[in-house]
């Protein structure tokens, strides 16, 4: 079953009077439960592609369908709602809400979704224990290390069991040991909860964990290796 279907996606913008095509007629299909890495050099269009798939940016042309729904036709308000109920985000700089505890950061999205308190509490406790932070639930972001914060971010992205998770360079700010642990965790959660992961990375260790690698160059897909770990 296809979760994401991208067809002829183009993103062009003008920089100093020159037209730059960041994403150039990309076609991509992501199936349920895939653990996909999008790799490529800087400026190849990885982040732009992920932003458009995540409904954060509008394409110049082409379509993006998530569970057969064309998200390029949604307006800004509908996109916010769509992201809330369908996509989990993991950012390079963790980006937790600084005034909320780990538990509150994770429960925040579920509460915005309108889940009841009991369900939220159970799920938050389950997911934070799964990422190894069962004993740090009441810590605020500034009381956690970078790796711990990124684990909270993973838990936040996964808590509401979204259709897929977009992770933009999730390990860029982490040391190698923490990166290793986080990747193991993401892989484990992907297998256990069958949540689709789509991440951009430069990091070879991340690439090594991926089960599918999409290579982008100058905004075009130049290579797509599926089932490389099976």
């Amino acid at each position: 079953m296809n979760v994401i279907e991208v067809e002829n996606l183009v993103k062009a913008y003008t920089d100093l009077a020159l037209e730059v095509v960041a994403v150039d007629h990309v076609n991509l299909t992501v199936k349920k439960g895939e653990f996909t890495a999008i790799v490529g050099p800087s400026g190849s269009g990885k982040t732009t592609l992920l932003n458009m798939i995540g409904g954060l940016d509008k394409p110049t042309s082409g379509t993006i369908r998530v569970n057969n729904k064309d998200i390029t036709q949604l307006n800004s308000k509908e996109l916010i709602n769509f992201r809330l109920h369908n996509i989990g985000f993991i950012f390079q700089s963790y980006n937790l809400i600084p005034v909320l505890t780990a538990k509150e950061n994770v429960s925040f999205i579920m509460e915005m979704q309108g889940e009841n308190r009991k369900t939220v509490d159970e799920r938050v406790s389950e997911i934070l224990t799964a990422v190894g932070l069962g004993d740090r639930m009441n810590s605020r972001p500034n009381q956690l290390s970078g790796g711990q914060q990124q684990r909270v971010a993973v838990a936040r992205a996964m808590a509401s069991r979204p259709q897929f998770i977009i992770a933009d360079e999730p390990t860029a700010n982490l040391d190698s040991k923490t990166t290793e642990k986080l990747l193991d965790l993401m892989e484990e959660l992907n297998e256990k909860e069958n949540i689709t992961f789509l991440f951009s990375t430069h990091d070879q260790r991340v690439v090594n964990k991926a089960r599918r690698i999409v290579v982008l160059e100058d905004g075009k897909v130049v290579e797509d290796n599926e089932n490389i770990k099976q």
Partner: protein
Amino acid sequence: MKDIIKIAWRNLWRNRRRTIITASSIFFAIFFAIVMRSFQIGTYKHMVKISIESYLGYLQIQNPDYFDDPSIDNVFEFTLEMLEEITKTVNVKVAVPRIESFALASTGMLSKGVMLTGISPEKEKEMSNPEQKLVHYAVTDKAIEHLQQKIKPDVIELLKIHNNTSFSSAEKLATALDFQTEDSLILQTVLAQTHVASGYLSENDEGVLISDRLSKYLKVSVGDSIILIGQGYQGSSAAGIYPVRGIVKLPSPELDNKLVYMTLGNINTFLGLSEQVTSIAINIENTDEMYKTETVLKQTFENTKTCVKNWEELSPALKQQIESDSVSGILFLVILYVIIFFGIFGTLLMMISERMREFGIMVAIGMKKFKLVLIVVMEMLFLSLIGIFAGMAASVPVILYGYYFPVKLTGEIKDMMIELGMDPVFPFAWFGDYFYIQGVIVFIMILVACIYPVRTILKLNAIEAIRGK
């Protein structure tokens, strides 16, 4: 909603120092604004009380033509039923009938135009109370000359300073001359020599009370007589000779130069009137309800040949004086509020610019912009409420103290104010609209300042905000 409140409250304390500084600026603005307005309004009310309550009355019932043409021909029929009707009106404290006219007063070689005021001596005690203003002691050349051989030169010097000054009580004279208790013997001597045998009018008295400055001008004292000549009702001529029963010292220099009190019966006879008056002066319990009482009285006397005027119409000069002073106070407050507004706006700008990335993330993960707006507005509301309530709370004891223990001027400024017919006492006003309005103004100001972050958030592009553009 609970989460939004929680986030807003915690955000407020992310930068504790900035929050404290901003809340303090709101606190001081509210505190100074309330205290200043209380002082101003208290002073105005006191001025009104002194000049309006003690003579003119907050309201007056007159013949409709009397206001434009204050002639003795524009009188109206006065009955005791009418007075009863007025006094039983809600909020009316006291009502006194008066006849006011003009005449020429003469004593031998000297004459002067005077204002005649016919009063009911007993009722008038509740209004202008001339009895309390009776001069009982007067320092004159003659008194000083008599005392020269009997008392110390330094007291004589003090008496010379207060020459031609009248006093309504022995205490006031003793205070003016700076007498100590050990000087009681000297004081008794001074009192005996300066004593004026002023008496008050009885209901059917045929004598008059004259104002202090007028008595000095005409060189008359208690027991002397004055001749009054004027025009009576409907062009008749009025003349009579009246013994001076007492001298009254009035706070208003203008009135003190020209006022002659007579009984209503006496002035009726003098002017050829019969049971007619020029006005009924009314004092009220609650001055804030003046317009309401005025309306009720207008309705009560709708079908009579009378009209009701309030003190603002009767004394436009005082109203103007208060208004112009009030405008300068309000202008000062506007400047204060503008400064505070920019302080708050600066805080908001900093708060927004340093959190744009965070806002971008929140929108990216699915937070509706409306909720984000709510968080920011709520933060500002919390901030303002802390400052507003703290400012209001801090002003309460100051107002209470100023209300119960008014500022009293002393020394030369006090004398100067008394000379100008003003009371050198400045009480604070009791809590009223002004107390809450300052908080409401700051609250509205903060809502206006919030327009900028609201616009910024509603126009926010999540990607650009995350990238820090």
